[in-house]
C-alpha cells in the first residue's frame, strides 16, 4: 500500500462542524506530480477537504500524511509544513495594502528567509510566468479579477511549494477571465506540479486531471480517471451532478 511516491495520504478522515458531520471516512492518496480534481455539489465538503490538507481546518478523526509526516492541529511546526503547500483561494485574498511585488516577496522574506533581492527576482520571474510581468508595482485593487487570481497563483508559487491547492479558483471570476486563469493552471500542470483542485471547470478536469474525485454529502462517492468519470459515471448521484454541470 505505502507507495513511496505518494505525497499526500489521507486515511479515515472525519470532521465535524459542531454537530454537522462534514467529512465522512475520506481516503485519498495523491502521488507526486499527480493532478486531482475534486468536484461535487455545494456543501459536499470538497473545500473543507482541501483546507484540511494544509490545516486551515483541523480534523478530528483520521490521519493526513504529507511526504511521510503526519500532520495535525497540535503539531509544533505547522508553519513549516504549510510553507510547502501553496494555496489559491476563490476570492484571491491578495493583501490589499501591499503592492503586487510585496505580496509576492513577503512570505519569501519573512517565512523562508530569502534575501530581498533574490525574492524580488523570483517574484518577477513568476509574474512573467503568469503573463503579467508589468504589474509588479501596482496594488491588487488596480487589477482585474483574472489578473488578481494570477498574482495569487504567482504568490503561492514564489515559495516553491511541493503541492498546490486550488479552492474554486475561477468561481469568483467573470466568464472572460476564467480562461486566462485556467491557461496558467494548465501550464503549471504540464510542468509537473502536484495539484489538488476543487473546481467545476470540467474542460480543465478533462485536460489535465489524472483522477477526478466526486464528493457528495461529505463522502467520496466516485474516484476515476476523467474520461471514465465523464463518459460513464458509476453512481446515480454522479450522473445527476454531471447532467447538471454539463447540460448548459
Amino acid at each position, binding site marked *: 500500500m505505502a507507495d513511496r511516491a505518494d505525497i499526500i495520504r489521507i486515511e479515515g478522515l472525519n470532521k465535524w462542524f459542531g454537530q454537522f458531520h462534514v467529512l465522512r471516512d475520506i481516503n485519498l492518496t495523491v502521488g507526486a506530480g499527480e493532478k486531482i480534481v475534486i468536484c461535487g455539489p455545494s456543501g459536499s465538503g470538497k473545500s473543507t477537504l482541501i483546507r484540511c490538507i494544509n490545516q486551515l481546518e483541523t480534523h478530528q478523526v483520521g490521519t493526513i500524511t504529507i511526504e511521510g509526516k503526519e500532520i495535525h492541529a497540535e503539531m509544533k511546526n505547522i508553519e513549516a509544513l504549510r510553507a510547502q503547500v501553496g494555496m489559491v483561494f476563490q476570492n484571491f485574498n491578495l493583501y490589499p*495594502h501591499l503592492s503586487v511585488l510585496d505580496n509576492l516577496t513577503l*512570505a519569501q522574506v519573512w517565512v523562508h528567509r530569502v534575501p530581498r533581492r533574490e525574492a524580488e527576482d523570483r517574484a518577477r520571474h513568476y509574474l512573467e510566468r503568469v503573463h503579467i510581468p508589468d504589474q509588479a508595482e501596482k496594488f491588487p485593487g488596480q487589477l482585474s479579477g483574472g489578473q488578481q487570481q494570477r498574482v495569487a497563483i504567482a504568490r503561492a508559487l514564489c*515559495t516553491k511549494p511541493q503541492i498546490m491547492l486550488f479552492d474554486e479558483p475561477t468561481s469568483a471570476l467573470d466568464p472572460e477571465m476564467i480562461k486566462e486563469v485556467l491557461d496558467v493552471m494548465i501550464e503549471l500542470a504540464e510542468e509537473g506540479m502536484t495539484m489538488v483542485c476543487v473546481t467545476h471547470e470540467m474542460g480543465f478536469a478533462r485536460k489535465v486531471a489524472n483522477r477526478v474525485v466526486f464528493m457528495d454529502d461529505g463522502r467520496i462517492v466516485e474516484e476515476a480517471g476523467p474520461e471514465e468519470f465523464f463518459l460513464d459515471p458509476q453512481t446515480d448521484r454522479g450522473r445527476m451532478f454531471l447532467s447538471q454541470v454539463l447540460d448548459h
Partner: protein
Amino acid sequence: MTVTIDRGSTTAPASGLTVLGWIHRNLFPDWRQGLLTVAVIWALWQTLPGLIGWLFLDAVWRGDRDDCVAASGACWAFVNARWGQFIYGFYPPELRWRVNLSMLALVATIAVLFIPRLPHKGWVITGSFIALPVVSFVLLHGGILGLEVVQTDRWGGFMLTLVVAVAGMLGALPIGILMALGRRSNMPAIRVFCVTFIELFRAVPLITVLFMASVMLPLFMPQGFAMDKLLRALIGVALFNGALMAEVVRGGLQSIPRGQFEAATASGMGYWKMMLFIILPQALRTVIPGLVNTYVAIIKDTTLVLIIGLFDLLGIVQAGVSSSDWLAPSVTISGYVFAGFGFWLLCFGLSRYSMHLEDRLNAGRRR
C-alpha cells in the same frame, strides 16, 4: 480672482464668470440661501469687530496689571510676563536648553513621519519613537551623562502637557493593540485578563485612575519602594487610554475579512508575523479616525493631572491668574484663552496630520 468650476467634461466650462456672477451663484442662488447669507454676514458684523478689538487692537502687549485693568482688551502682557513659566513650569531657567532640546527631538521625530520616501521607513519610525522617550527622559530628568538632576515636581506648563500627552500616546497604542489582540485570543486566560482590564479601565473616569495612581498605589507598595508621582500618573494615563484604544483597534481587527487571515496562515506565517505584516497594517488604517479621536482626548485629558498636584499648561495658567499681582478679570480671560489656544494648536495639528496620513494611505490602494 479666477474661478474655475471645471469638473471633467460633462459640464460646460464656466468661462468668463464675473465676480458678480460668482456672488450670485454661490451666495444668492435663491431667496432662502440669500437670507442665510445675509444672516451670517450680520452675525459676523456683530461679533468680529469686537473680537478683533479685544484680541489685538485694544489688547495690552507690554506692561503690568494696572495697564491691563485700564485697557478694555486682552492682557497679553500677563502671558508675556509668565511666558517662561507657562512653557517650562518651575524648571530651572539656566537648564531650559535641555527642555528645548527634547522638544527639538520631538519635532525631529515627527518630521521623520513626513519624509515621503525613506529606506526602511517603518523601522526608522519605530526606532525613533522608541528612542524619543529615552532621550527625552535623559534630557529632562538628567542624572546621567553629567546632567544635573531636575526632579519631576519642577516640571510643569506646556512642557509637562507634552510629556504627559506624548507618553500617554506612545504608551496607549501598544497597550491598546496588545489588549485588542488578547481579547480575540483563543487562550481563555489571556482573553479573560484582557476583557477584565479593558472593562475595568473603561468603566472608571480618568480622574479616578489618576487619584488611585497618586494616592492609593503608594499605600499598597512595599515599604521603601517609592515611585515618582509623575511616572505613576503617566502609567495611569497610558493604561486608561490603552483600554479605550483597545476597543478602537478591535473594531479594526473585526473589519478584516477572514480570507486575509487564511491567506497569511496558508503561506506559512505564524500568528505574530501574520498580525504584524498583514492584519494590523490594514486594521489600523481603517480606524485612523478613531485612533486620532483617542489621541485628541489624551491631549485634552492631560489637564486632569492638576488633580494630583501636577501643573500642566492649564494648571500653571490657572495658578498664574490667581496670583495676587495679576488679579484682574481681563487677565483671567486672557490666560484661559492662551491655554485654550495651546491645546487647540496641538489637537488641530494632530487632526491635520491624520488627514494627510489617510490621504497618503488611500492613494496607495485606489479601488
